[in-house]
């Protein structure tokens, strides 16, 4: 019997999913659109087009209804032939600026470099909930292709009409329509002249099949790549405005500390310095960073501390404060009974520590009050979410808040909130001048949100033939994403229990899927070992999904799973299905018995995310995921005591560097018959369990903790 979808599986990290749903911006109107753009021909599509493909199970449904009529993206061909795409999605290094342009170029039959992508500007682009959850490729790209194809068909038809010929005799190529009989041709720009036409997207328009792609499906280089290698690209933290001041904030010395007294006299006496105090919020501004820093240093603050849990007690704390649910469920009883009756039982728990995203560009914002308009530039994965936060903060209407997002120094799920934007806007309002605020690395490591810590308890059993019988899985606090097991079992009871996190926590790449996959794939591995079965065959026997089995097999073959091992080495493997993508990873580790050190020698990843849009950029996403995953697998964790973060710097928080790189191989399974899924998350999920299982293989030691290689945790 299959367990029902538990209703307490929310994504605690994705508070944005249920926090802002009720206040969507008004749909762009046609008039407003052409006022902004001048004449031409445009195509637009709505949210319901984008989202109708989503599984209508989660919280998304509510938002979807409310958003139904708002426009999700625009595609505009100007009278001068310029093609502009407007999307609320943003670029944080995942290269969608390039891949979305490729998709449009393919269907519109124009040069990819003739396309300008306007992204994440709340005045110009349509509303977008945010760039997260691997949604851009599966949902946004196909709709943009339809919009582009609809426009191409429109151009073909109008040219044919103009030439009084059958549409069969015309052909779109390189931004023009060619009359194949007469050899005449007319550009899209000419065909758009004098029009202000909003063309509906034809849902039924025929799209090129992936095997006919010329631009999409190929590795064209990052569109604005040269700006990055020359240092010309302007990130938020690089921006300046005339008269701009730099801001610095007085942060509490610990979580839960309250400001009881502030002596700002010394700072205020410094030339060019202003001290701004709004309740507990205290900041300084000055014309240069050094002065602002000295002023901050000159503030004398007294704080009142409160008792805060420490890292050493975090897992007891999380379990103690967890919501209890499902205790009386039939599925719980069934799993328990089945467990008791089974031949081989296994029960263990897994500890997941807090980690930081540590994007190399810290949170930053520049705010300017221009009359009653608030202009904000900030690095965020949710420009419209930031706009809503600013609306609440300053109580002004959204139409007066323009949030812009320059391509940003990455986010990994860490830049969903508008903290820096609100702080900069408060300072700018109080100072009466534009203010730029760039968080320090220490602020990043302390006041940004973390990937949640969690405790995972698993109890499961097999029969004598190695078939899973019962599966009971409890996740405390780390999250419900990816919690469902892909393995067949006779009784399944899976629950996520939210808890009270002492540290601020939020989204991280793939949310809780890496944590849940770590626990599940370790448990599965240990069942195989208990039965003296090969972990690969054990998995293949208990899995159903053919695509998942296929990537497992591909990873194992590429890795040489059956090959003989060198002395003191171990092999491990893991697999996962998440967000439409199938991932499998094999790891080889080497164990040095003398100093008890473990080294990751080799990683092989096989990934199937349907049709491949840009092979090189896809490989890059997989690579980035797997190597970033190496960090939290082995050594990343946030240390804290009495509300203080103890390792808020790169010299104390170890992240992967050049010399930590194992030999790494990536296989991409191109499924031209399947829709493209996003790739920025799922490949991160299997690294940790593959390594853990390899360590177990080499040392017979089970390390059920992330990170694995930090002693004394």
């Amino acid at each position, binding site marked *: 019997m299959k367990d029902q979808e538990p209703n307490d599986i929310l994504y605690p990290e994705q508070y944005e999913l249920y926090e802002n749903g009720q206040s969507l911006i008004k749909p762009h109107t046609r008039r407003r659109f052409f006022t902004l753009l001048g004449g031409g021909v445009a195509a637009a599509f709505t949210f319901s087009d984008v989202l109708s493909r989503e599984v209508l199970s989660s919280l998304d449904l509510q938002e979807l209804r409310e958003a139904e009529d708002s426009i999700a993206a625009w595609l505009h061909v100007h009278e001068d032939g310029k093609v502009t795409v407007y999307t609320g999605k943003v670029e*944080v*290094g*995942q*290269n969608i600026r390039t891949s979305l342009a490729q998709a449009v170029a393919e269907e519109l039959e124009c040069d990819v470099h003739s396309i300008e992508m306007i992204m994440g500007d709340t005045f110009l682009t349509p509303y977008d909930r945010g760039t997260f959850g691997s949604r851009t490729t599966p949902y946004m790209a196909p709709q943009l292709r339809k919009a582009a194809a609809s426009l191409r068909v429109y151009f073909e038809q109008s040219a044919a009409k103009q030439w009084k010929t059958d549409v069969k005799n015309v052909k779109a190529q390189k931004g023009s329509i060619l009359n194949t009989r007469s050899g005449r041709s007319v550009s899209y720009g000419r065909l758009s002249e004098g029009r202000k036409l909003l063309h509906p997207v034809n849902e039924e328009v025929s799209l090129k099949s992936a095997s006919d792609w010329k631009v999409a499906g190929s*590795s064209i*280089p*990052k569109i604005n*790549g*040269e*700006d*990055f*290698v*020359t*240092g*010309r*690209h*302007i*990130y938020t*933290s*690089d921006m*300046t405005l005339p008269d701009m001041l730099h801001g610095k904030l007085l942060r509490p010395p610990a979580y839960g500390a309250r400001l009881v007294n502030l002596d700002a006299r010394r700072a205020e006496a410094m030339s060019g310095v202003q001290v701004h105090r709004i309740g507990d919020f205290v900041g300084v501004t000055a014309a*240069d*960073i*050094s002065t602002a820093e000295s002023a901050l240093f000159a503030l004398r603050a007294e704080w009142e501390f409160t008792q805060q849990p420490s890292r050493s007690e975090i897992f007891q704390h999380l379990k103690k404060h967890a919501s209890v649910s499902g205790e009386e469920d039939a599925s719980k009883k069934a799993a328990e009974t089945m467990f008791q009756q089974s031949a081989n039982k296994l029960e263990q728990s897994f500890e997941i520590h807090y980690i930081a995203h*540590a*994007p*190399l*560009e*810290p949170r930053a914002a520049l705010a300017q009050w221009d009359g009653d308009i608030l202009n904000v530039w900030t690095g965020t994965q949710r420009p419209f979410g930031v706009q809503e936060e600013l609306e609440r903060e300053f109580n002004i209407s959204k139409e007066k808040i323009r949030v812009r997002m320059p*391509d*940003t*120094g*990455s986010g*990994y799920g860490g830049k969903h909130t508008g903290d820096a934007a609100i702080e900069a806007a408060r300072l700018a309002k109080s100072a009466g001048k534009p203010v730029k605020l*760039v968080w*320090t*690395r220490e602020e990043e490591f302390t006041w940004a949100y973390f990937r949640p810590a969690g405790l995972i308890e698993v109890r499961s059993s097999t029969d004598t033939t190695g078939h899973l019988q019962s599966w009971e899985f409890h996740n405390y606090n780390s999250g419900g994403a990816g919690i469902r097991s892909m393995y067949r079992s006779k009784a399944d009871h899976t629950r996520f229990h939210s808890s009270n996190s002492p540290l601020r926590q939020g989204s991280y790449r793939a949310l809780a899927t890496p944590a849940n996959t770590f626990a599940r794939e370790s448990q599965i591995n240990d069942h195989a070992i208990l039965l003296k079965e090969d972990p690969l065959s054990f998995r293949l026997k208990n899995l159903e999904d053919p695509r998942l089995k296929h990537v497992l097999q591909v990873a194992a073959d590429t890795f040489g799973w059956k090959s003989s091992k060198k002395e003191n080495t171990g092999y491990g493997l893991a697999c996962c299905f998440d967000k439409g993508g199938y991932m499998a990873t094999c790891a080889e580790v080497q164990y040095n018995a003398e100093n008890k050190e473990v080294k990751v020698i080799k990683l092989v990843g096989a990934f199937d995310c349907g049709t491949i849009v840009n092979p*090189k*950029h896809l490989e*890059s*996403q997989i*690579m*980035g995921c*797997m*190597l*970033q995953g*190496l*960090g939290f697998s082995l050594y990343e964790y946030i240390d804290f005591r009495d509300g203080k973060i103890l390792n808020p*710097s*790169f*010299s104390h928080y170890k*992240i*992967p*560097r*050049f*010399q930590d*790189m194992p030999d*790494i191989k990536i296989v991409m399974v191109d499924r031209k018959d399947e829709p493209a899924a996003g790739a920025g998350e799922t490949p991160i999920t299997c690294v940790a369990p593959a390594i853990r299982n390899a360590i177990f293989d080499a040392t017979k030691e089970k390390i059920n903790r992330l990170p694995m290689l930090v002693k004394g945790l």
Partner: protein
Amino acid sequence: MELKVNGKNQSLDVPAHTPLLQALRESLQLTGTKYGCGEGACGACMVLVDGTPTPSCITPVSNVRNREVITIEGISVNGKLHAVQKAFLAEEALQCGYCTPGMIISAVALLNKNPEPTESQIKEAMQRNVCRCCVYPYIVKAIQTASKMK
């Protein structure tokens, strides 16, 4: 304070202890050099000082008086990309690109000193530079490619 940056003499009115990073970014608007940590631990702020890759965040301007400072803006000459820059593009050795200027500076310094480094020499020379997007293997590849281009 007299400095020589990207071949140009510059006179700055800043205190001697001002970090070079700030002087470059704020006084000279050379924002290609990035802040990542402020403690010499990430390499985002690397510049060449007399050819040596140096974290500008922990270098006071007074230390570089009468020395030759080259920033990422001075790596390409007359709009022509340096081999390392070309190779970074060719190998797609970046995602968000925030680490890229610092990476390129370290790579240029390495190749100037050792035109044909081995893979492990590359990793060793680049160890101070962090790429949080973790495209390290492509960066290694790009440096190898640049080494062949020269």
